[in-house]
């Protein structure tokens, strides 16, 4: 069939990690020529590329992509994988949702190409990445409104300020055990506290908002559960309970729970976590961006580049389809330009290793890299 042919017009610069070596291709690779006119039997249906150029054309790119990270982002990544597979059937994508923290651990151990995250990377994780020589591009893909929920019969805590939540959820000497400890006009009943597990990005994000930079810790007498459905059951089952989780779980359980309107510190108005309020940033400070972190070492791979581009192109539609809130065009454009110019690094940790806080519009700018 194929005869070995020495082809001297072939040169390849070979790049291994950061080392660049020039090798004469003929010496290093077996170069095979093909007798002209001979046509091999076409490949399996899906991989032929006979279709006209356009959206529906099926690609012949092969390869595998490994993704791990936040279980909150998991549905978006799963949906992307599903859609991507229709156009790129040769690419194997494995998506795990072991948690944001675990995702970053695997990311800086170079086990994954992309890390899903429901909070920005932490300074410690960034340090580990730098040590391991892992560079990444930070791309926001959707908004999630972290939702504080109460029992529908609870009529006193329908509007809360961040200070209230701080008082309720943060560990302190005088931490309230009864609602009346928070506000004397509230009932003198025990508060039931429900929160996601400490490994989740949701827990971390809530903690960051209510605690900020101080040394305080979250309360240790809450009911923690990795399974958000258990939190739904907990709060739905007790009139005096309060808890928090991602907006998707609230959307599915609207009949059993009430979402607390959170007072925006900027204009002192309480907003409910509706899609509009989350997208417009009015539901502050609990509307949070969800991210994917893409290793720049993986980006030259055709399959990874194609997938990340596909992710950005479809992030708005897909995130809405899986019950999150779409990011505004302005942010998506910025993400696209970051990807195009391969701007690596995080916007959320400054040069001194301190975390930046605030709305994604203000922080996700080139100057913060």
């Amino acid at each position: 069939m194929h005869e070995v042919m020495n082809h001297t017009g072939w040169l390849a610069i070979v790049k291994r990690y950061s080392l660049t070596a020039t090798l004469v291709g003929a010496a290093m690779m077996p170069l095979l020529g093909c007798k002209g006119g001979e046509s091999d039997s076409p490949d399996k249906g899906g991989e032929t590329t006979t279709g006209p150029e356009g959206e529906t054309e099926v690609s012949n790119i092969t390869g595998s992509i490994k993704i791990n990270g936040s279980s909150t982002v998991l549905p978006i990544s799963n949906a992307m994988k599903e859609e991507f597979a229709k156009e790129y059937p040769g690419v194997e994508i494995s998506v795990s949702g072991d948690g944001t923290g675990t995702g970053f651990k695997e990311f800086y151990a170079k086990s994954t190409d992309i890390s899903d995250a429901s909070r920005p990377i932490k300074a410690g994780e960034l340090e580990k990445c730098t040590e391991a020589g892992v560079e990444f591009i930070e791309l926001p893909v959707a908004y999630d409104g972290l939702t504080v929920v109460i029992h529908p019969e609870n009529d006193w805590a329908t509007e809360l300020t961040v200070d209230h939540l701080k008082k309720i959820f943060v560990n302190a000497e005088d931490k309230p055990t009864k609602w009346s400890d928070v506000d004397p006009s509230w009932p003198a009943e025990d508060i039931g506290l429900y929160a996601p597990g400490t490994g989740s990005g949701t827990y971390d994000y809530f903690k960051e908002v209510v605690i900020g930079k101080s040394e305080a810790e979250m309360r240790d007498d809450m009911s923690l559960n990795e399974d958000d459905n258990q939190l739904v059951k907990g709060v739905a089952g007790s009139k005096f309970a309060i808890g928090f989780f991602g907006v998707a779980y609230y959307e599915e359980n609207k009949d059993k729970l009430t979402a607390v309107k959170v007072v925006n510190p900027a204009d002192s108005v309480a907003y409910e976590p509706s899609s509009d309020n989350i997208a417009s940033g009015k539901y502050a400070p609990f509307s949070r961006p969800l991210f994917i972190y893409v290793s720049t070492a993986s980006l030259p791979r055709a399959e990874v580049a194609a997938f990340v581009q596909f992710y950005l192109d479809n992030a708005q539609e897909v995130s809405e389809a899986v019950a999150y809130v779409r990011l505004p065009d302005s942010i998506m454009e910025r993400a696209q330009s970051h990807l195009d110019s391969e701007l690596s690094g995080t916007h959320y940790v400054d040069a001194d290793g301190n975390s930046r806080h605030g709305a994604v519009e203000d922080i996700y700018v080139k100057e913060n890299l």
Partner: protein
Amino acid sequence: MRPTDKPKTEIPAALRSQDSAFLEKNTRRRKQLSRWFYVVCIMVALISVAILALLIASIVYQGQSRLSTDLLTRSHSELDIERSGMLPSILGSLAVCMVCAAAALPLGIGTAVFLEEFQPTSRFLRWWHGFIQINISNLAGVPSIVYGLLGLTVFVYMFNVFGKITVNEYSGWELMGATHSYQVLTLDPKIAVKIPTDSADVQRIRMTGPGYVLGPNNEWMQIEIWDPKSGDPRPRDPSKRRRTVKLGQAGSLQTEKAWYYFRLPFDKSFLAAGLTLALVILPIIIIASQEALRAVSPSLREASLGLGATRWQTVKNICLPAAIPGIMTGAILAMGRAIGEAAPILVVLGSLVAKSTGPKHLMDNAVTMPVLIYEWAGRPEPEFQELAAAAIIVLLVILLAFNSIAIYLRHRVQSDSNV
């Protein structure tokens, strides 16, 4: 007997007074008690059955609406939840359990034969024998998640003896079934060409000149180079774009994996998961096989030895055939546990659900039914919770089917050996 001890000749009161009324009453009371005990026993037995029936009924109630062909023929879908299925997880579970059985059965039965039939006589070996016996009994009580962590170190990472597998850098010791090539994107963003290579040492090349490559249909073709800086316009003709590569375009190493692709370490593969499960069920198989061998009548064994058969001949021709039904019972129970284990698989393979196929090669990862059920049950959408219930029904049916086959086989073996 000392003279002071008078022999007891006194008749018990019940016998002394031949009060027929008392006797009758006493008998009635005893019989009644016996009847009551009988009723209590039945109730206790019924309670456990009733709980099981209630459980199955509630699951069937929750899941029956999702029992459809989609469930058996499709994979997890995020955008089309209604039509999500569990085919990859069925295939994954079967693959994992096959590995598990292939590893655990020979090892388990072999160990049981050693412990029962080849009891050593020397002091040291006897101590060793006892040591193994005690440890196997202990291992049977170890929680399965601990085996998961063990499997992670031993099978997934292999103590990093063969290096740590990383994306873009190192893909382990590839022993079989790997075909390497560099994938280079053409000017058509959906079409790539391949340059085969023998060595997997270099992860990335850059295109600097024209040459022969493998095209989209696996045919050899010549490729041209377009230099954006040369001022030549970017080729517009689609067929030409597919034959043209940008100067300096990266080509990255691709591994095409045949089904027998074998690599060390195993990384997160169904092989590692199967071997981990084998560790979980090994003690159960050993203990059950030991019981079965112990139940073989010593007279059979002695008769065989007395006729001059060696120990191996005795084991092969007498003990094992007689013990096979018992061993198979143990194996059935153990495999039933293996197919339903979620914790060690979650540790070894991670919480992966959206895989669209069963494992394609030995080093491929897999979704298993218990993990899928666990993940689905934790999702907010009620559809997924119903799907989880439907998946439980499928898992139970598959489990029952396997058990029936195994019981049928055992029956046949049993009746054969009796003839």
